[in-house]
Each structure stands twice: as structure tokens, then as C-alpha cells.
């Protein structure tokens, strides 16, 4: 008979430790819950998008069929733009909870259309959904602490330290194996649901592996912190207080303070301000002489200068020109909004070096494409598409072409970046 390996021996001891089993079961339950809720949210978003995509073209074609001129077509034809969730986003919903990921836009002023869309789940965004990135970044460290804090100090308090060490000799001290066993079991409990969720969602293996590696590294960092606290050789309860204090500092205080400082240091206009600037310009246009509206438009589009005479009554050319001028007057503030968010994001990225949980959360969101950069990239793709729409319609409105339904089939189509 072979001597049971230290691995089996410690695994057996762990299996008899009710407190450890409780924390591991809790880790598993939290991970399962968070992955399931992420999968459900992504399925919901995909379902919504599938419905909208299916209706998009039919709705537009029905409207176009009723039109007799290009101005009306541009007014009534909506186009769906959207940012589909990535296959990894179930693990880190990130900005998808608070930023709009779908719009129905038309030829009117764009900035208003981008920014009037409500947050998709305002009440959830407030509460903060418990997704996998939250569990891995903020809760797993607590579980590391509860699983490891009294590994040595508990034995010391029970008066077993010398017996254990003397029995094991030096060659085979049980501590590292015990800690490794618990850390391994914890990582398994946290990562198993991620793997299952990933295969359910058809997520790329490389992405899942990167996420898993990041989570394992994060857990190892907390193991190192616990080991450091153990060097103090204080009572178990004191050690627990120190470690929970450390968690509060790194997982709560540092990120919250960082957020406040970043927001103070980098002012960012709100979406509502952009909306207001653009609306004011549009509303003012009705009271201005039409020629006056055409001046800033022609500055931007000299190619239509010779077609810019406006009829006395209602003229679609003038109507769309002032829509564009509305965007032009919101341009600076909108650019400031984008720049500000990017600057804040960059500052948050740097400050995350001080908080392993915040760092992991950001890394998972960047892998999942649910970070601030992805939101801004999506907004840019909507602007690019809207610009294509304008080119298409201007080329027909300004030369005064007749509406032909067959030609409307050549309207630009939105295709998401991913």
C-alpha cells in the first residue's frame, strides 16, 4: 500500500472542516448566481436585439413605401444601431448596465438621439448587478481571508502548532499544502461556473482562460496579503480584523475615493447638457431667417452651396440643414463629453493599480468589451453611420431628385463592429 500523499491527506482534512466547506459552498453559490444572472441578462439583450433586427428593415420599408419625396423618407425611416453583447460579456456586464447599447435613429439631429436614450436598467444600474466580475473582484478576496486567516493562528491558539510541526518535521510542513488546497478549491468553486457559463454562451476559450488566469492571480495576491498578516503572529481574531480592514481599504475605500477624486479633478458635461445645446439650436432655427441657418451649414458642406437656395414655404433642405446645425452647435460639448469620459477612464485605470479588486474588475470588463472605451466606440460607430445617412440623403435632397423607392434600397446599412 502506498503512503497517502500529502495532497490527499490535506484534501481529506479540508473535507472535514465545516467552516471551510461553508465558505467554499458560498463561493460556488455566489459564482453560480452571478454567472446565471449574467447569462440571463445577455440572453435578454440578445433577444431584444433579435426582435428589433427582425423588425428594423420591414418597418423601414413600410414607411418608405408611403413616401413621395426624399425629405419624408429621411424623416420617417428609422435605422437600428446597436452594440451586441460579446460572448464574454455575461461575466462582466460593466457599462452594459448603465449605457445605452441600442438606438433607433433617423436623419434628425443625432446628438439628441444618442443621449436621450434612457439607461437600459436604471434601477439595476443603481443597485449594481452582482455579476461574475463583482464576485471575483470584490467577494472572492473576503473568502480568501475567511478560508486562510486562522490556518496558522488557529492552530497556534489551539496549542497544536508544535505538535503539527514536530510531527511533520521540516521537510513536509503542512501549511503551504493546506493553504494551496484551500486556494485551489476556492479558485475551482469560483471558476467552474465561469467555464460552464462560457461554454453555454459559446465564449472563446482564450478569453475564458485569460479571465481565469486573472482571477487566479488576484486570489494569489490576497493569499500573499494573508500570509503577510500571518507574519505578525497575532491572535486569530486580531488577524481577521486586520485583514477585513485591509479588504475594506483596498476593495471599498480606495476605489470609492479614487472615483470621487477623478470626478472632482476631471469635469465632464452631462448628456443632458448636450441634448439641451442641440435642442436650443434646433428650436431657435424656426425663428431665424432661413438663409441665416444655411450659412453654417454651407460652411461645413460647400459642395451644396449652389443648391442652397431655400423655397419660401417649408423646405426639407432647410429642415435637415438646421438639424445638422443643431449637431454642429453641440459638437464641442459632445467632444468634451467624450474626451472627459476617456480622461476619467484613464485616471481610473491608473488608480486601479492601488486596488487589486478594481484592477481585476476593469481587466475583466475590457476582455468582455463592456468598458467605457467600448461604449465610446459604439457611439462613434453611430455617428459614422449617421454621417453616411446624411451623405446619402443630401445627395438626393440638394440636387432636388425625385424619390424612387428602388433607389432607397441603396440606403446605408448599419453593421455593428463586432
Amino acid at each position, binding site marked *: 500500500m502506498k503512503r497517502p500523499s500529502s495532497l490527499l491527506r490535506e484534501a481529506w482534512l479540508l473535507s472535514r472542516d465545516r467552516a471551510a466547506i461553508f465558505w467554499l459552498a458560498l463561493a460556488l453559490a455566489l459564482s453560480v448566481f452571478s454567472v446565471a444572472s449574467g447569462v440571463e441578462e445577455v440572453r435578454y439583450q440578445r433577444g431584444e436585439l433579435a426582435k428589433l433586427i427582425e423588425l428594423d428593415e420591414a418597418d423601414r420599408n413600410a414607411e418608405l413605401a408611403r413616401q413621395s419625396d426624399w425629405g419624408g423618407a429621411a424623416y420617417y425611416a428609422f435605422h437600428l444601431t446597436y452594440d451586441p453583447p460579446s460572448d464574454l460579456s455575461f461575466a462582466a456586464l460593466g457599462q452594459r448596465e448603465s449605457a445605452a447599447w441600442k438606438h433607433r435613429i433617423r436623419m434628425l439631429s443625432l446628438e439628441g438621439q444618442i443621449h436621450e436614450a434612457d439607461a437600459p436598467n436604471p434601477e439595476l444600474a443603481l443597485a449594481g448587478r452582482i455579476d461574475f466580475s463583482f464576485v471575483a473582484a470584490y467577494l472572492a478576496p473576503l473568502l480568501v481571508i475567511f478560508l486562510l486567516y486562522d490556518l496558522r493562528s488557529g492552530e497556534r491558539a489551539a496549542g497544536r502548532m508544535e505538535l503539527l510541526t514536530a*510531527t511533520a518535521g521540516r521537510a513536509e510542513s503542512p501549511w503551504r499544502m493546506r493553504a494551496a488546497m484551500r486556494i485551489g478549491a476556492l479558485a475551482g468553486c469560483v471558476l467552474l461556473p465561469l467555464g460552464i457559463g462560457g461554454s453555454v454562451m459559446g465564449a472563446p476559450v482564450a478569453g475564458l482562460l485569460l479571465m481565469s488566469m486573472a482571477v487566479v492571480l488576484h486570489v494569489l495576491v490576497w493569499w500573499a496579503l494573508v500570509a503577510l498578516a500571518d507574519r505578525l503572529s497575532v491572535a486569530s481574531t486580531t488577524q481577521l480584523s486586520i485583514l477585513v480592514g485591509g479588504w475594506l481599504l483596498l476593495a471599498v475605500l480606495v476605489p470609492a475615493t479614487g472615483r470621487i477624486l477623478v470626478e472632482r479633478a476631471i469635469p465632464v458635461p452631462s448628456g443632458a447638457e448636450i441634448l439641451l445645446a442641440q435642442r436650443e439650436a434646433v428650436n431657435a432655427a424656426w425663428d431665424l431667417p432661413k438663409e441665416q441657418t444655411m450659412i453654417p451649414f454651407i460652411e461645413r458642406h460647400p459642395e451644396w452651396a449652389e443648391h442652397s437656395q431655400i423655397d419660401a414655404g417649408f423646405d426639407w433642405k432647410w429642415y435637415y440643414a438646421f438639424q445638422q446645425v443643431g449637431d454642429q452647435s453641440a459638437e464641442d460639448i459632445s467632444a468634451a463629453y467624450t474626451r472627459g469620459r476617456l480622461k476619467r477612464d484613464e485616471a481610473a485605470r491608473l488608480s486601479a493599480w492601488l486596488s487589486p479588486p478594481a484592477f481585476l474588475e476593469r481587466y475583466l470588463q475590457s476582455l468582455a468589451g463592456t468598458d467605457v472605451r467600448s461604449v465610446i466606440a459604439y457611439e462613434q460607430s453611430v455617428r459614422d453611420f449617421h454621417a453616411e445617412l446624411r451623405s446619402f440623403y443630401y445627395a438626393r435632397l440638394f440636387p432636388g431628385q425625385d424619390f424612387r423607392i428602388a433607389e432607397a434600397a441603396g440606403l446605408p446599412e448599419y453593421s455593428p463592429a463586432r
Partner: protein
Amino acid sequence: MKTVLEARDLSVERSGKRVLDGVSFSVTEGEVFALLGGNGAGKSTTLLTFLGFLPPVSGLVQVNGKAPAEDIAAARRAIAYLPEAATLYGHLTARENLRYFLSLARMRPQAEPIEAALDQVSLQPDARGRQLSSYSKGMRQKVAIALALLREAPILLLDEPTSGLDPVAIDEFHGLIRLLAGAGRSVLMVTHDVYGACQVAGRIGLLRHGQMVGSFTAPAGGRIETEAVHAAFAGRVPA
């Protein structure tokens, strides 16, 4: 006779305080040496020093002719240690505790010797499958003694092994110790029990405030006089 444990002019400090001060004695193969002394005399400290937990500030400590620090694994392998107020795992049964610690000592824990050892310390068979948290103090001590026996180490360091045992169990234990010594094992035991020490030990060392203040050796074939030791222990006679 081969010397297995030796302390020569040994001094040890704990938290900056000198707790062993120039202690010398040795234990030979097959010998039972009892270390007597009052609370805080330095008895447990002596055992911990042999196990390599506390480095001597001066003097010499040896296990099988080598300083423990020289080859700590070898020293600890040669020793079965019964700590003072031994606490095994309360949430494990007697059998599970023994299996765990034997495996920790890189031994193959097998049912038969485990039951035999538990028989030797006369732990009731119906208690052996129960968690230690439901044991009395003496029952827990018996399991810890069984562990020391099962280690099959040539040297036993026992810190107050009879504490908590009832008189019958103490008598049985002393019989066991004599048996082990007869089979060539060396025993260094710490105790407050003058009578018990005289019954079982071939030599007795008296420790006071970290100094060896007296020693008694049994005459060939006989026992150490309890009266003399008792008087010395109580401080009535300068030893």
C-alpha cells in the same frame, strides 16, 4: 550505553528572558529520565529545545549526537512528542486523528496497530469512532499518548503525560513506559508527580528557575526513594 539526548551547560531565552540557565543532563538508550519542577521552572522549554523550536543562546543540545538545527527533520523524525495539554482535532474521531497525524509523520496509518495502541491506553472501543470534542480530558490525553506510541520513534519526549489520567490509567501508563524502555526506547518525561516519577524513572532531574538543582539515580534493580525526591522538590532539603 549510547547517549540519545544531551544538554550541556544549556541556556535558552524566551522573549529576552533567560528561562534555562546552564542546564546539563543526558538520556541514554533504553532509559527513562523524569524532569521534575514547579510551574515555570523550564521543563516544557527543555523539550521544545530538543525539538529545535528554541535555539540555545549558549551551551549545547544534541539529539543522537547532533544539534537539532543541524538536521531538524532527522531530529524530529527520531522523536515522538507529546505536548503539554495536547490538543488533537476536536472535530475528528480518535481513529481519524491518529490516521491524520501518522500520515503527517509519513507513516502508513493502518487499522490494526491503531486499535492495538488504543487498547494499550485502554480507550473504550465504543468511543473510538466519536469526535474528540465529546471526550473527557483524560480520554483525549489517552489518544495523544496512543499517537506517541504509534510513532515508533526511538525517543519519546512527554510533557506531563499523566495529567488528566485517573489512577488506574496512570498505573497502566507507567507499565507501558517501563515496557517501552525495556524494548530500548528512550523516554524524557516532564511531570509534577513525584511518586509517579519515582515509580517509572531510572533517573530524575530537578529543575528550579531554569537551573538543574538536583538529580537522583535509581540503584541497580531498585527504585528512587520517593521521600528524598519529595523533600528536595518541596525545597525542604537542599538537593
